[in-house]
């Protein structure tokens, strides 16, 4: 084997080469390390770029969502009063109270405002109110506030019953209860930050483009309201309903009259029950003809009942408070419900009005004939409230006759109040020379007694006057 002989130069060369090799390896290591770091940095940045791209991709969607939210919040907060509107709210509180007949004894706004829940954009504002009112006045006041255009809710309501003693007070006495309520509303303070909102290029154009979506998203907010119906004759739940025992037993009132009123209610209940049964049969009727028959039968029964009830209302025949309450809360709504059920295309409003007008006209004629002028006036007032002006010539004639009867009746009522004192008569049959001494003055037929009243005829047992254009008999 050849012996490896290295010349001095060879050795030097090898040493240098070795050094180069080692140096290169070290350098390569560091460069490789740096490359790895750069690679990692690049991967991280790529991820950032991806995230950034994803964010940028969402810009259009975000702009849309922000516009929809901004516009809807702007719309929603209209239900809340602004700071500037608090004076108006104060005024409204007083106006509501005075329109209902309540006098506020204390109206105290709480000084400190609380931030509402999750966002600083809303601040809660509280008011404490004290007043005295009946239960139904309180109810109306609360209802007015709840239906106010700006959001108002109640944090507390305390009602203490007013003083009422059945032994001391009349049954219709209405005590005032002391009420202490705390109402709450919110103020939107986020509107002041609008300068800090992100500026969206072409906002108005984009908003116009998104109008439909804005409207769709807006359906979500619904501020419930309750329409309080006009108060009927319900008793105050905070008043003792028991009655004072009258001497001779019973709890007051003419028992006979009350029995008659109760009988009327019972009769009305029977008719309502019959009509309910008829309506049930009508729904199950085998033929259209049968259905029509039942409808007419039910309708006639109801019309008769309604006519009776109209008379009762016109004559104010129900005096007992309990019976009256039952009449108004149980009978009238039931009749109205049945009228609605029976009312259809076949028996339209015009037919109903025709029957009512004719029935009322008959009652008015009868009442006028028996000189019950007040009943005539009441019947006319009731029918005018429930029936519109007719277009049918027959009904027009009926209505004008009713109007004339009403005018005559009111004139007759006024005539009854005119002082007529007849102290002497000289009657010549079939002659115009008859005279009558009225209020100490002698008058012949055809002479004027006042500017509105003329003596038309002198009879042995009556005088006939023309008062405000209406002929009226004065029985002697």
């Amino acid at each position, binding site marked *: 084997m050849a012996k490896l002989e290295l010349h001095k130069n060879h050795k030097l060369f090898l040493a240098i080469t070795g050094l180069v090799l080692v140096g290169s390896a070290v350098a390569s290591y560091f460069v490789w390390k740096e490359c790895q770091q*750069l*690679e990692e940095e*690049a991967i991280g940045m790529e991820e950032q770029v991806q995230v950034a791209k994803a*964010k940028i991709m969402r810009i259009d969607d975000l702009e849309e969502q922000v516009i929809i939210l901004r516009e809807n919040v702007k719309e929603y907060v209209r239900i809340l009063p602004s700071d500037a509107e608090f004076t108006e709210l104060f005024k409204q509180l007083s106006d509501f109270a005075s329109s209902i007949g309540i006098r506020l004894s204390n109206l105290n706004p709480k000084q400190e405002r609380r931030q509402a829940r*999750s966002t600083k954009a809303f601040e809660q504002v509280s008011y404490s109110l004290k007043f005295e009112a009946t239960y139904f006045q309180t109810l109306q006041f609360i209802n007015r506030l709840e239906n106010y255009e700006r959001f108002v809710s109640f944090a507390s309501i305390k009602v203490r019953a007013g003083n009422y003693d059945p032994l001391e007070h009349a049954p219709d006495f209405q005590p005032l209860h002391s009420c202490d309520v705390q109402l709450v509303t919110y103020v939107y303070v986020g509107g002041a930050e609008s300068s800090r909102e992100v500026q969206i290029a072409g906002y108005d154009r984009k908003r116009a483009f998104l109008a439909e979506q804005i409207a769709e998203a807006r359906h979500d907010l619904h501020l419930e309201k309750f329409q309080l119906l006009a108060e009927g004759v319900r008793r105050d739940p905070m008043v003792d309903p028991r009655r004072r025992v009258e001497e001779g037993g019973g709890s007051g009132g003419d028992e006979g009259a009350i029995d008659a009123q109760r009988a009327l209610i019972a009769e009305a209940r029977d008719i309502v029950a019959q009509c309910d049964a008829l309506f049930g049969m009508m729904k199950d009727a085998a033929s259209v003809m049968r259905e029509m028959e039942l409808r007419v039968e039910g309708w006639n029964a109801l019309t008769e009942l309604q006519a009776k009830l109209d008379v009762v209302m016109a004559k104010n025949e129900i005096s007992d408070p309990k019976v009256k309450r039952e009449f108004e809360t149980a009978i009238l709504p039931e009749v109205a419900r049945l009228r609605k059920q029976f009312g259809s295309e076949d028996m339209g409003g015009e037919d109903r009005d025709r029957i009512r007008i004719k029935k009322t006209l008959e009652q008015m004629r009868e009442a006028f004939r028996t000189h019950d002028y007040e009943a005539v006036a009441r019947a006319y007032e009731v029918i005018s409230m429930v029936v519109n002006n007719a277009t049918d010539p027959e009904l027009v004639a009926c209505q004008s006759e009713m109007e004339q009867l009403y005018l005559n009746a009111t004139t007759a009522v006024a005539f009854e109040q005119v002082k007529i004192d007849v102290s002497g008569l000289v009657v010549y049959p079939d002659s115009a020379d008859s005279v009558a001494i009225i209020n100490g003055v002698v008058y012949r037929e055809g002479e004027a007694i006042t500017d509105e009243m003329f003596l038309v005829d002198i009879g042995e047992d009556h005088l006939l006057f023309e008062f405000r254009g209406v002929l009226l008999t004065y029985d002697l």
Partner: protein
Amino acid sequence: MIQINLLPDEFRRSQRTSAATLSVILIATFFGFGSLSVTGYLYLNVRAEAHSRVSILKEQLDNMTPQVRYAESLDSEKGEFEKRNKTIQEIAKSRTLWSEKLDRFAEIVNRDVMSPRHQVWFDGIDIECGLEAKDPHMDLDGFSAGEEFKLVSNFHEDLSRDAVFAKGFTEFTAPTQTLQDPEEGIDPPHKVAFDFGIKLPYEDPKKKKKAEAAKKAEATESAAGSSN
């Protein structure tokens, strides 16, 4: 040992590099220059490429930054407006229409004209339902005409079974009743004093916050799970 070559130059054996030496030199040269080349390649090519990639990405990111910031601002504004939206909806929904409740209440009390199930009247009505109320309730304090305790129970039952009145209440506590001394001259002379409470729903704000946080965490976890 020292060797001395005494032969004249022409007779001396020619001095040439041995094959082994040459091989060693060649190998050393190969590795030496090879490593240099690798280092050069790494430095001039791979490193430069990585550098340029990073600078390109940096530039790309820099260019995107304003848009990203814009998107982030929009996102945070969206979050804030969603909160406002939610808050105002909660405010609107949180309202109890007390006029409806009290109207219905009066109607139920007035049913005494229709049936003899009860005849009651009240001395005090206390309603606490504010957001800060820890025990929102409606307390009724009243009297029932007559001696029968059953009538109060009837009234209690009518209230709790009335769909309009009972809506939104969580619990009607049982009434406590006490027969009062008879009052002369009034029909009926006896009355029963009673009181009972009606509870409104209450959610502890701390518990609510915790529940909301837990719900959020759950939603995030499930989103992460579905992306994996």
